[in-house]
């Protein structure tokens, strides 16, 4: 039997893994919606992208629910404090999710609304990539928690590092979204966006580097116990940089599938670096490390964590398998004339 401490730590990293699985998939769905808004010539092209992305959207969104629901289940105290602190921000995120969900699923249900739906889908894609980047970066960057508690309003999340994190997510999402359209549709949309992609890859690379620097320089995000005690873990933020540079080179050479892989790796290493860096703090303080709220202070009981560990050990692999099979089953490029 596992100890309570072991399971608390385990669930911290399970949530990190869930965030990785979510963001990697969500980025190309979001990115594809932006390209669909800007670069489709007719409704057939739009429809091809909608079908390619819509097919998986529902299933992907559940990973976000698991990230939030899992936080609730494993760390109710942290869930309550985070969502209370970022109350307004979460409602803005919610408005974006609602807009996307409705537009992606019901785009062509009413002829008079197709144009509105297309714009709603694309604009919410831009904003949501930024919001997800700002949110995760802030979770790593920390909040203005003094020894007597939280002092700032939710507006503090729009600090420079957070904003760069948002632009980084937007840039990377545009890369993976373009590749997704290239891989999944028989349209020449991806040909048309080739040129635009290069400066975007450059911006994504620069903002990734600045965001990492910002996290390093606030003296909190990368100064917790894991990085201090295990020097080899520094390879994770280093690999974030390597991946993003590889993504840039691939994009400049127009190897779009490689761009997709390296952009996805950038997300993966970035989120891993952030969670490793803040461990064991779940709501870090950027005023003084010890003011942060650790995972231990708001976690569930041993019984609940044991139960959830078994459930996750059984069901996460099952879900990964059937969602993975779904990608394979529907890997054929979508011909716009067929829908």
């Amino acid at each position, binding site marked *: 039997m596992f100890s309570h401490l072991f399971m608390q730590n385990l669930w911290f990293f399970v949530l990190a893994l869930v965030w990785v699985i979510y963001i990697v998939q969500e980025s190309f769905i979001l990115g594809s919606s932006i390209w669909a808004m800007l670069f489709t010539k007719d409704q057939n092209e739009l429809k091809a992208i909608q*079908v390619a992305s*819509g*097919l*998986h*959207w*529902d*299933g992907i*969104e*559940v990973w*976000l*629910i*698991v990230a*939030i*629901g*899992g936080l*609730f*289940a*494993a*760390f*109710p*105290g942290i*869930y*309550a*404090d*985070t*969502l*209370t602190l*970022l*109350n*307004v921000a*979460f*409602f*803005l995120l*919610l*408005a974006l*999710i*609602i807009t996307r*969900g*409705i537009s992606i*699923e*019901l785009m062509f*249900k*009413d002829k008079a609304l197709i144009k509105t739906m297309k714009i709603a889908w694309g604009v919410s894609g831009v904003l949501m990539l930024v919001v997800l980047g700002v949110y995760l970066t802030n979770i790593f960057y920390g909040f203005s928690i003094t020894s007597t508690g939280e002092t700032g309003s939710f507006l503090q999340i729009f600090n420079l590092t957070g904003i760069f994190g948002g632009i980084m997510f937007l840039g990377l999402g545009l890369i993976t979204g373009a590749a997704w359209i290239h891989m999944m549709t028989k349209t020449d949309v991806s040909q048309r966006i080739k040129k635009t992609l290069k400066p975007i890859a450059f911006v994504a690379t620069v903002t990734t580097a600045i965001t990492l620097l910002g996290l390093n320089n606030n003296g909190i995000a990368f100064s917790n116990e894991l990085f201090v005690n295990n020097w080899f873990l520094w390879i994770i933020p280093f690999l974030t940089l390597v991946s993003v540079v590889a993504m840039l080179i691939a994009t400049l050479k127009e190897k779009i599938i490689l761009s997709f892989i390296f952009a996805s790796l950038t997300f993966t290493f970035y989120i891993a670096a952030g969670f490793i860096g803040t461990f064991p703090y779940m709501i870090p303080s950027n005023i003084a490390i010890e003011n942060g709220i650790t995972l231990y202070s*708001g976690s*569930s*009981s041993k*019984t*609940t964590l044991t*139960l*959830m560990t078994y*459930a*996750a050990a059984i*069901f*996460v692999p099952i*879900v990964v398998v*059937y*969602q993975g099979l*779904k990608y394979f089953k*529907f890997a054929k490029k979508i011909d716009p004339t067929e*829908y």
Partner: protein
Amino acid sequence: MGYFLSLNGILSRIQFGFTAGFHFIFVPLTIGLILLIGIMEFLHYKTKKEIYHKMVEFWSDLFIINFAFGVVTGITMSLQFGTNWGNYSKFMGDVFGSPLALEALIAFFLESTFAGVWIFKRNKISPKARLITVWLIVLGTSISAIWIIVANGFMQHPVGYVLAADGSKVILDNFLLLMTNPYTWYMFFHNHASAIVLSAFFIISVSCYHLVYGKKEDRDVYVRSIEIASWALLIGSISLPILGQDYLRYIGIVQPTKIDKIVTGSSAIVRIAFSIMVTLGTLFVLLSLYLVAFKNKFLKSPTIQKIMIYLIPLPYIAILTGWMVTEIGRQPWIVYNLLTVEEGISDVPTAEIIFTLSLITVYYIILGILDYRLTVKRAKEGLKDGGKG
């Protein structure tokens, strides 16, 4: 018993009641409709008759519209426990968290992954794959209702827990007890039966519209839909009072204050809501008996068919009043006898709640109009050629 509710408490309650009520416009329709679509798809798979395929395609379009709205308004619910009910989440998290996480892992993934296939690819896969897909969605939607009702059942009648030494939270003690809470299962079956009643009613009303105003050549599709839905309505509406009797007796034991509100009228809203629900429930039983016994008479009477079209809000009202009895009847407790509503709210500035409540209200008004427009438009269009998604 008088109790104090602060402005934040009142606003948070309005917000939760509004968002939960709005979410519940879509949930029962999708739960019941996909079950009936599953039956139609099965009939098509067995008989290969084109009529069932046409039925599946038409009702699926209406399912998809409402499913999309159900999904997005459901995400609101999973965030709100933290944004507006932070102290409740801290108190309940250990017990509530695991059902919620299991719900996502087991049910949401299942229904969402395969709903995606159903929405976008159902005409690109084999008949067998279609049948499996639709039944996996049925399974997913049904299971997803279980977990959230486990949490609600606990709030009505807490079992399987111990209180933390400082009284600050409940701690899960016996998962089996939590899962076998009788309150949960009364609610689950009551809830499911009403979802079937609502969806069957919906199918009958929309079909009536087409019998009265629609094309002659499509008539057989709607008649067959009415036949299937009438039986579903009969089974659903009769099981409600049978189950309800027992449910009510049980509530009398575990939640005497709720029965007081229903019977003695110490809360006028609860008493009125209860009477409306029971009256409508009785009406549904009579209606379903009529539809099954006098089907041919009904099919020849455009007057009664026209009336049926306009009765479509009735099952929605019945479900809404049912929830009002359950949730208002529990007041002032958020977790019965353990935590009051006032103790459960988040510590956030009033201005923030006003902002989020306004944002969500504006958004939901737009969503409400959109859903109404899309559903009514699609319902009136009737069958389409080819059945392409």
